[in-house]
C-alpha cells in the first residue's frame, strides 16, 4: 500500500518530523472517525491531507491541534503534547468557523491574537502578508467572504509560528485571491515554515504540496509526492475529434478505454505513442489532438473508489 518514500529534491530542506500521529483511533460514540491512523509532517514541507467529506481530515487536524484526544494511539507536535501552551506558541491554525466577532476591526483581531504569542510579527507585516493593509480598519462584518478568509489567515500567521495548519483555506475565494494566497503559502515555505493543508481543490494540492496523504473512511490509503500518487492511475489520456467509431478505436493496440466527450472522444492508454500512430493512419481527417497525464483528480477518484 505505502509508496516508498523518496527524498524530495524539489527544495533542499531539513527533514525532521515536526508533528506525528501514531496509530491513532478516534471514536465519537459508535462512529469511528479515525482507525489506526498514521501521519507524519516533515519540517519545511507542505503536506496535503486529501479525502472526501467525512473522511476524517478535520478529526486528524483537531488531534494535531490538541483540540481532541485520540481514543487510542499517540499524537505529538514538536515532540510534545499538542495541547501544551508552549507547543501552541509555535503553531498557527486557520480553521473553518461559522461566526467571528463582527464588530471588531481586522487590525484589532490581529492585535489580540498577536498578544498570545511570545514573538509575533509586527501587525503591519501581518497585514501586508495577508493583503489587508487597506482593510485594516474595516469591521469584520463588513468584509466580503474572501476578505474574511484573509483575516483568518492573518490570525494563523500573526504569531510567526513554525507550523501552520490550514483547513480548506481557499474556500469561497475567487481565482485571483486563491492564487494570491498560494503565493503567500509559498513564501512561508520559502522562509522555512511547515504547512499542513486540507483542501477539496486538487489543483491546489498539485501546485503546492510536497507530499500528499489520502484519507478515506478514517484510514490512510495512500501517501507520497503528487507525482507518485498520480502514477497510481494508469497512463495518459488522448482527446481528439475523429470519424472513427468507438469499436474501431478499441481495436487499436494499447487502448484501455474509450469514452465520448461532447464532439470528441477520450482514449485512455499506457502507450499513447502507438495509439496515436494507429489513429493517424486510420483517420486522415483527425483533429484537435491533446495528450494529457491522468491528473491528481483521476488518481484521487480511483483511490477512494478502490476503497469502496
Amino acid at each position: 500500500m505505502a509508496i516508498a518514500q523518496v527524498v524530495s529534491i524539489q527544495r533542499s530542506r531539513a527533514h525532521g518530523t515536526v508533528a506525528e500521529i501514531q496509530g491513532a483511533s478516534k471514536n465519537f460514540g459508535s462512529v469511528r472517525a479515525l482507525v489506526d491512523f498514521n501521519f507524519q509532517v516533515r519540517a519545511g514541507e507542505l503536506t496535503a491531507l486529501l479525502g472526501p467529506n467525512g473522511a476524517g481530515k478535520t478529526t486528524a487536524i483537531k488531534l494535531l491541534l490538541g483540540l481532541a484526544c485520540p481514543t487510542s494511539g499517540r499524537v505529538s507536535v514538536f515532540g510534545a503534547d499538542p495541547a501544551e501552551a508552549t507547543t501552541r506558541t509555535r503553531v498557527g491554525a486557520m480553521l473553518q468557523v461559522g461566526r467571528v466577532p463582527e464588530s471588531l476591526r481586522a487590525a484589532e483581531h490581529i492585535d489580540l491574537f498577536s498578544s498570545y504569542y511570545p514573538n509575533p510579527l509586527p501587525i503591519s507585516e501581518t497585514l501586508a502578508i495577508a493583503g489587508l493593509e487597506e482593510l485594516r480598519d474595516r469591521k469584520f462584518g463588513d468584509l466580503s467572504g474572501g476578505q474574511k478568509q484573509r483575516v483568518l489567515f492573518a490570525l494563523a500567521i500573526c504569531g510567526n509560528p513554525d507550523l501552520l495548519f490550514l483547513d480548506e483555506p481557499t474556500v469561497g475565494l475567487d481565482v485571483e485571491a486563491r492564487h494570491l494566497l498560494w503565493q503567500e503559502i509559498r513564501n512561508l515555505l520559502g522562509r522555512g515554515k511547515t504547512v499542513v493543508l486540507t483542501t477539496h481543490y486538487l489543483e491546489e494540492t498539485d501546485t503546492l504540496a510536497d507530499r500528499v496523504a489520502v484519507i478515506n473512511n478514517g484510514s490512510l490509503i495512500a501517501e507520497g509526492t503528487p507525482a507518485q500518487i498520480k502514477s497510481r492511475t494508469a497512463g495518459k489520456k488522448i482527446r481528439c475529434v475523429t470519424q472513427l467509431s468507438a469499436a474501431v478505436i478499441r481495436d487499436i493496440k494499447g487502448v484501455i478505454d474509450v469514452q465520448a466527450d461532447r464532439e470528441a472522444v477520450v482514449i485512455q492508454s499506457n502507450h499513447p505513442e502507438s495509439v496515436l500512430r494507429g489513429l493517424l493512419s486510420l483517420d486522415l481527417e483527425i483533429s484537435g489532438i491533446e495528450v494529457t497525464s491522468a491528473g491528481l483528480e483521476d488518481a484521487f477518484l480511483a483511490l477512494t473508489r478502490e476503497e469502496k
Partner: protein
Amino acid sequence: MASVSTTMPAATFARPNPLRICFKEAKYEFLKCLRLPMYSVSTMLFPIMFYVLFGLVMGRQTIGSISTSVYLIPAYGTFGVMGASLFGTAATLAGDRGLGWLQVKRASPMPIYAYFLAKVVMSVIFSTVDVLALLTLGVAFGGVHIPTLVAAKLVLTLVSGSLPFCTMGLAIGYFAGPTSAPAVINIFYLPMSFCSGLWMPFMFLPKFVQKIAVFLPLLPPYHLSQLVFHQVGAGQGGPILWHWESLLGFSLVCLGIAWVGHQRDQKANG
C-alpha cells in the same frame, strides 16, 4: 530567512505576558459589545428608561419609609446588573461555542482563563455604568439624598453582584444554542426579576405571586436587591450575611453546572 531547526527547544521562547493578554482580551471584549447596539443599548436603556418613567416621572410617592425614586435605584440597579452580566456572558459564550470561534481561540496559545475573565470584566464595566447612571439621574432629578459613603457602598454591592450573574451566564451559555441563547436568557431573566420584586415592590405584586414568597430565597436577584435595600434603609428579609451566603452558594451551583457543560463540550469535541 535561514531554514528552521526542528530541534529548537520551546524553552528558548519567552512566555507572553499573561497580564497583557488579559488586558487585551478584556479591552476587545468590551469594544465588541459596546459596538453591538443589541447589547449596549438594550442593557443600558431598559433600566434607565424604567427608572425615568417610574422613578422620576411618576415617582413622587413613598414605598414604606422611602421615596420611590430611592427605592427604585437598588431595584433597577439589580435589574441592570443582571441583564448586563447574563447577556454579556451567556449570549457571547453560546455563540462562540456553537459557531466555532471558541475552537479557534482554543487552538491558539490563549490561556482559557483570559477568555472568561474578559467577559466578567466587560460585564462589570457595563454594570458599573448602569448603576452610576441610575444614581446620577436620581440625585439630579429625583431628589435623592444619599450620603457619599452609602452611595459608594451601594455601587460596590451592586457591581459585585455582577459576579453571581456571570456564573449564571456561563451555566446558560454552556447549554444554550447560539441562536436560542437570548430567548433562554430571557426565560430566566424576566420572571426572576419580576418575582424578586425588581419591577414593583413585592407587596404590590398579585396575591398568587406573593404566595410563592417561600421560594424567594432561591432567587439571586432577591438577595442582591435586599442587600442594597438594607443600605438605603428599606431592607425586609433576613440578615445581611445570609444574603451574601445565598449569592455565594448560587454562584457555586452555577459554576458546577457550567463545569458539567464544559465537560460535555470536551467530550463531544473529543
